[in-house]
């Protein structure tokens, strides 16, 4: 039937699909499959079968599997949790950076009109988004109120404060380099006595975040190695317990790939379960911490909030876990499975 050169007209299925022709046509298609196609089908169905079988084996020993998943979950949740905390912190420092303003003290002799002109000039710069003028009498008034030196200030004959401009850098120049360039430019401007910007704490915060970031990555790398080794060891035990089966499979002509497959899938499932446990642990921790963190942030009048895992982040976490599981299994299989030879 498969080799028939052309189908007889009456067996040709009608173009407007009628219900009855469907199954017959499908059967015909199945029979005329090429051997290559058949081999591929059986290859994939074997993969499905092995994947299902490996998952079932893990379910059959739920306590042992859950323990392995939890070990993986904890090891993965720790660096990912720290990474999330760091991301939240970076969000905060970005907020502070936007609030960083450059204080420009003008020369004493400048009149209010000159100061107003300078304000317009500086405001026209590309790297400045906003300039506020604080006139010296207003500044003195404020100082009098806030410093508590009211009486002492009354003894002064004249206002010692200069006119001041508060420049807010534009979005694009809120970097260390941008700020330095802006400060330099303002210092060159005529009529400017002194420019002050507290870059120090910004630099410190950036440095701290960088150290923390690297630390988290180093910790993550160490824990990833630990996860791979844990899975490798678990797979090694699984290989030992199925030694007889491996021997028979090799004796009846199973290729190395065939014999390895169940264990690689087991590693994959361990990884998947570990990723899910890590996700659950992260969500629980987030829920547990969110209230006190909000209260703390409220005390500092900050809208800081711990950010959870995004959908992409979750997918990446589980994919990484699956990869680690597979890698661990691969290491164990490479070391221990190839050593099992009949003879």
């Amino acid at each position: 039937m498969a080799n028939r050169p052309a189908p007889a007209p009456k067996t040709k299925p009608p173009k407007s699909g009628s219900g009855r022709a469907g199954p017959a046509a499908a059967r015909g298609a199945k029979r005329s499959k090429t051997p290559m196609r058949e081999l591929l089908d059986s290859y994939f169905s074997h993969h499905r079968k092995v994947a299902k079988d490996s998952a079932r084996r893990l379910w059959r020993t739920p306590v042992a599997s859950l323990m392995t998943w939890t070990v993986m979950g904890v090891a993965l949740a720790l660096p990912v949790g720290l990474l999330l905390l760091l991301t939240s912190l970076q969000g905060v420092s970005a907020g502070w950076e936007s609030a960083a303003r450059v204080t420009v003290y003008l020369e004493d002799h400048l009149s209010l009109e000159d100061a107003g002109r300078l304000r317009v000039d500086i405001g026209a710069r590309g790297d400045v988004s906003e300039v506020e003028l604080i006139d010296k009498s207003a500044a003195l008034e404020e100082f009098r109120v806030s410093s508590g030196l009211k009486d002492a200030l009354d003894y002064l004959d004249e206002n010692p404060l200069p006119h001041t401009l508060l420049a807010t850098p534009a979005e694009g120049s809120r970097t260390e380099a941008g700020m330095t360039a802006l400060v330099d430019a303002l210092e060159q401007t005529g009529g400017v006595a002194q420019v002050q910007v507290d870059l120090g704490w910004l630099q410190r915060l950036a440095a701290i975040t960088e150290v923390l970031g690297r630390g988290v990555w180093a910790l993550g790398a160490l824990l990833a190695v630990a996860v791979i080794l844990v899975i490798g060891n678990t797979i090694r035990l699984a290989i030992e317990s199925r030694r007889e089966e491996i021997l028979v499979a090799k004796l009846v002509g199973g290729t190395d790939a065939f014999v390895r497959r169940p264990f690689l899938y087991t590693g994959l499932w361990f990884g998947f379960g570990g990723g899910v446990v890590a996700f659950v642990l992260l969500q629980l921790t987030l829920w547990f911490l969110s209230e006190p963190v909000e209260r703390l942030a409220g005390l500092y009048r900050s809208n800081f909030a711990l950010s959870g895992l995004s959908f992409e982040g979750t997918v990446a976490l589980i994919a990484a876990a699956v990869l680690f599981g597979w890698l661990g299994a691969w290491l164990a299989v490479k070391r221990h499975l190839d050593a099992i030879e009949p003879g």
Partner: protein
Amino acid sequence: MIEFQQVSKRYDDDHTALRQINFSLGRGEMAFLTGHSGAGKSTLLKLIMLMERPSAGHVIVGGQLLNKMPRRQVPYIRRHVGVVFQNHHLLFDRTVFDNVAMPLEVMGTPSRDIGRRVRAALDKVGLLTKERMNPMQLSGGEQQRVGIARAVVNKPPVLLADEPTGNLDPALSADIMQLFQQFSQVGVTVLIASHDIALINDMNRRTLVLDGGRLIRGGDLPAAEDQREVLRG
């Protein structure tokens, strides 16, 4: 189908298991391999199923020279050699059916063919009704027959058996031999290692006798010599 040319096997510790073995078995031929324990029977079988490699000489199975066969080719050769083991090597974590299906599974046989062929093999050894049982529930003779079904399920051209009747009583042993005879009748080359002299004599087949690693009887090449004589005449 199986050919040994000047085959020797020496193990690392200077123990020589086989010395200059010469014999050949044709398609559908059934032969026994006998000798005392340690005479080299197991080693000879291991050379055919590529569990060992010869130290010298050529081992040819199905026209393929096995000596230098790369490791990754080994599984494909083994698929052409069915083996019945003395200790069955059955897996007790699965049913009789799944045990017999293993050689088909490793070959990637489509599942609907697996069912058909496994049942055909089980039918052949008379265990069709026990396919759902665990091999542990079966008697020794039945376990051995499951092993035979597994060895022949993918219709290999060569069938090896290592003491297949080792622990069986004479009646059961005769049944098993009957089975092997049937396989040889359909063209399978059968080589049975056994030290059950009475059984071998009953079967009245070609017998290769090993002693201290040498083939002392049955090692001539009857087919080749016959041909030479025909040519001379």
